[in-house]
């Protein structure tokens, strides 16, 4: 359960006392660590992946450059996959804000209403949206999509890797993907999804800053510290 921290001692009768009644611990340590591991993994994977797509540095500058790039790509891929699995564990067993329990329920009238309120807010059809601790329902949908992209990227990455040994267990575990989409298209999508993740990144950064301004609830700092002010009043 969320811990609280009283902010009354920051008062003093002035107008600029802290607007928050108290602080709530929203993002647990593992969630923050996973967030930043993913962040760095994606940057490294995108850079080395782009190099694999278009080897723009040649051997005259660096001997064995492709071998090293691929090594870093695969190693980071493994770290990313572990991070993904860890996040999946917290999705199932984490506390409220990190778990599936905070998904909006499409069969619940109130949840649907909140969802559309946020859609209207994002599309300028309304000026305000309720303050929500944790993810707002539209963001949750975006994260489910992102989670699917990660899953595909990991599955396709390991499948592509496994082709070096079609008799091996990695191929047995992931090679079925090639029965659904041929390996050329797996590779094509593995490249395309990098751009989709890039598109998400822009969206994500913008939305976080937007809500940081709108709700003055420390969205940006919360992913470093874990704390958010309780401003639901």
């Amino acid at each position, binding site marked *: 359960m969320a811990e609280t921290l009283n902010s009354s001692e920051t008062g003093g009768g002035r107008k600029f006392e802290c607007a928050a009644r108290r602080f709530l611990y929203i993002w647990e340590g593992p969630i923050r660590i996973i967030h930043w591991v993913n962040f760095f993994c994606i940057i490294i994977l995108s850079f080395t992946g782009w190099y694999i797509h278009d080897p723009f540095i040649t051997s005259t500058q660096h001997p064995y450059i492709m071998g090293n790039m691929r090594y870093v790509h695969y190693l980071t891929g493994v770290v990313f996959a572990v991070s993904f699995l860890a996040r999946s564990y917290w999705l199932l067993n984490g506390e409220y804000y990190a778990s599936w329990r905070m998904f909006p329920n499409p069969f619940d009238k109130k949840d649907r209403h909140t969802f559309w309120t946020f859609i209207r807010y994002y599309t300028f059809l309304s000026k305000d949206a309720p303050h929500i601790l944790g993810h707002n329902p539209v963001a949750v949908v975006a994260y489910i999509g992102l989670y699917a992209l990660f899953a595909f990227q990991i599955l396709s990455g390991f499948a592509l890797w496994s082709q070096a040994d079609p008799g091996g267990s990695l191929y047995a575990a992931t090679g079925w993907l090639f029965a659904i989409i041929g390996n050329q298209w797996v*590779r094509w999508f593995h490249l395309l999804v990098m751009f989709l993740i890039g598109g998400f990144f822009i969206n994500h950064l913008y939305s976080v800053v937007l809500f940081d301004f709108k709700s003055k609830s420390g969205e940006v700092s919360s992913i470093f510290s874990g704390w958010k002010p309780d401003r639901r009043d």
Partner: protein
Amino acid sequence: MGDFSDLLESHGVTRREFLKYCSALGAALALPLSMTAKIAEAIESDTRPPVIWLEFQDCAGDSESLLRANRPTVGDLVLDHISLDYHETIMAAAGHQAEASQQATVEKYKGKYICIVEGSIPTEAGGVYCTIGGRTAVDILKQVGGNAALIIAVGNCAAYGGLPAAHPNPTGAKGVSEILPGKTIINLPGCPMNVDNLTATVVHYLTFGAAPACDRHLRPLFAYGKRIHDNCERRAHFDAGQYVENWGDYGHRQGWCLYKMGCKGPETFHNCPTLRWNEGLSWPVMAGHGCVGCSEPLFFDAMMPMYRRLPNVPGFGVEASAVKIGTAIVGASAAIFAAHGAVTTARNWKKIGKAKAEAREEISHLNSDSDSEES
């Protein structure tokens, strides 16, 4: 089916050469050396099954591959020696006589003969795009192939539809396994198939009475179980970052990696780099051209453009690569969120101004407070 040793002798092939060939074949099939005698025995035996070679929508390239030898090798003799009862391109009989001999074999050896298929099978418009002796390819394949002990689909067309099945596939061309699902089929795709793999497959069947182990695309693992990229003699240049950038440039003359020239080797499976072609003389990448992926189910469409590694997506009249589509997506999201930011700022302009004014006022209060404290 005359005596095989007489045949060898008449072609000037010694027993020693024959056994050498048998052990090479065993190596191609990844069998232990001790199997050599068994292979020789199987080839020499007189119980070899007859073979019917069917040609449909093809270019006879696989027949070419079969006949291409400039000097008779043992391999050719093995294939010659199995009783090739029906092969349109090379048999002496013609017309009704030929069809009659085909039917005779089907009747006499029902469930025992080998059927080799070359070329794709058209299915559109009732299959009229390919008819032989008044019968459609589908019809012939169902009867002749359906009664065979084993079907070997040679070349990409027979295996997966190949060139005739390329977009927009006007004849509805299909591979054998789509017409006869459930039948024992071995695919030997390639454009053309490598005749040494055909010999090895046939000999495997002669020796063990069963088809060799195959992958999910029904290709024998001994020939298609390893990626071209992993056995390529230019592979070291790939990892080293030495690439051909233009045809005839320094790297090309040095034999560097053809990855940037659209080589499909990283996604294709065949023993070209190890077995090679034309009696082991060379193979495409050795000759300086990237792999075009002719032994994959995705050939032709997903292997084009020939000089790009990844396929393009048709649409809106232009072909678009993943990079083009991806850049458009990232660009669009950047534009959308920049616009959103601008609109949000504009809508809140007054609010922001008010907050700023309040803050300014507060600061001046603070300053005057501290001024009075000091004095």
